[in-house]
């Protein structure tokens, strides 16, 4: 009884907020460590490795939420009931037997928190960080997409074969197979560059947000179209090189580009290209807001 009297009835909000944060950390630190370890050391399943862009995206999302904090506090406390449902759904997912559902519980619970604390305005404020978390949540979606990359695989095999023929190599292309000097190279679903495309689109999204170009639909669309073009081209070149190395018996070079740090270097160089692509698009397509300003003058 004495204790109850000593406690001031409105318990400090910060105490409660810290408790919520504490529980979230308790639930998700082991999971996040598992993701990060998996992405860095490739100890996670191939499908979940596709989401390694989370290494950039998750810290960036955290940074955005932190820099939004004063705007968040200024929002009125108008809870949305859907928030509770999402929280319950998230907890059910977290307690399920499926890794994918456990993973997805993170964006679900975070969305639920936004809705339950600040309603729709809160969700709108945190929409972009939440999108970044959701797109970095590892799921088996790449496995389900793999059968649909077949046309892309044959296209890559055909183009790589054509390039090698121009270089004077005798290459035969059959569907997704390249036959060079009696050796077969298969453009497997995981070689179709879906991972590189995912990463490029994600990094592209970050760049668009960072430069404010996301506000212009023309710039956004042409940038994404450019990303797809650059990524597919880069992947054709990569597969051409791999076929060349394998067909001419340069196994070391093949392994370096296929499994070693050569592949990472190649991806990094391609991501670097995206910055120039965006610069180019910004120079070519006039900013809408600029033209409005000009009209006002």
């Amino acid at each position, binding site marked *: 009884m004495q204790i109850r009297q000593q406690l001031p009835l*409105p*318990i400090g*909000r910060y105490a*409660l*907020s810290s*408790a*919520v944060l504490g*529980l*979230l950390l*308790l*639930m998700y630190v*082991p*999971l996040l460590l*598992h993701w990060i370890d998996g992405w860095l050391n490739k100890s996670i*399943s191939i499908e979940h490795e596709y989401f390694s862009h989370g290494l950039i995206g998750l810290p960036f999302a955290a940074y955005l939420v932190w820099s939004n904090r004063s705007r968040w506090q200024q929002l*009125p*406390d*108008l*809870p949305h*009931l859907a928030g*509770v449902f999402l*929280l*319950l759904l*998230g*907890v059910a997912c*977290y*307690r*399920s*037997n*499926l*890794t*994918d*559902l*456990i*993973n997805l*519980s993170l964006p679900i*619970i975070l969305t639920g*928190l936004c809705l*339950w*604390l600040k309603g729709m305005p809160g969700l709108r404020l945190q929409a972009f960080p939440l999108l970044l978390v959701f797109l970095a949540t590892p799921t*088996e979606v790449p*496995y*389900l997409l*793999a*059968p649909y990359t*077949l046309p892309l695989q044959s296209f890559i095999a055909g183009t790589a074969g054509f390039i090698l023929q121009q270089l004077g190599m005798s290459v035969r292309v*059959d*569907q*997704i*197979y390249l036959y060079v000097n009696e050796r*077969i190279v*298969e453009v*497997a*679903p995981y070689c179709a560059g879906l991972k590189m495309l995912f990463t490029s689109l994600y990094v592209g999204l970050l760049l668009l947000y960072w430069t404010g170009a996301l506000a212009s639909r023309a710039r956004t669309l042409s940038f994404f179209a450019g990303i797809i073009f650059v990524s597919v081209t880069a992947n054709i070149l990569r597969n051409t090189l791999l076929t060349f190395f394998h067909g001419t018996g340069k196994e070391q070079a093949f392994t370096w580009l296929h499994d070693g740090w050569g592949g990472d270097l190649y991806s990094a160089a391609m991501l670097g290209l995206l910055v120039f692509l965006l610069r180019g698009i910004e120079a070519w397509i006039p900013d809408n807001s600029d033209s409005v300003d000009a009209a006002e003058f």
Partner: protein
Amino acid sequence: MLSLFKTSPRSQILRMLVILFILAIAAVPAVSTYFTGGWIWKSLPEVATLEQLRAIEKGGLVLPEWQTLNHETVEIGGQDWSVQAIAPANQTATETNSQAPIFLMLRPQTWQRDQPQVEWMDINGVQRWTADSKRQIRFEAQMPSTQGSVGNSVKSVQVNARFLRGWNQQRTYAVLQWYAWSSGGSPAPSRWFWVDQRSQWRDRQRMPWVAVSVLVPIQPLGDIKQAEVSAIALGQTVQSALMRSALNAGA
């Protein structure tokens, strides 16, 4: 009801308490996992019949009323396939020699993370054949009830398979292909995926699978319709034999 949670400092506390209560449902069991280390995401459930599946890869499948003429393990698309030449058991040696054998190609799951991928494409690649007249067919395969179950009811499962003509310079085959699992079969990896997810979700068990490709020789560029009945009959036998042995943990 929502007005309860609006504006006043009391209601703010109430809302935070709701969050704490809901999160605690998940966080409290998580605490014990910190000590045991058994995080679900760290490992997939074991494949119960991995031994039997590997045995198929090495030794093929014994089919009732069929004899195996020849068996070998062949690498196709980076994976080991069990390739069996088979003939009806009542066929004599002279008949067998004069006729082209039927091939039964099996590629069982052999490790935990092994998933169906592009098996049909791999076979196309190794046979270097042209595939046409493609269509889907359905058949039922039966599994005699295991001991202990009620009555003599026969459990049957639905199998969807792709049926096509594959031909090259040497041979023309009627080809029947599907991924077999204990409760059915389909040529689409995604069908297996959802069955496997359901099995993991409900029972925390994997759904082992075997890629099956049956090659029935037909006349050069002949119509596969003539082989449809025999291909389906063989397909049923294969699915039943697989369900009896390698696909069912309880069997």
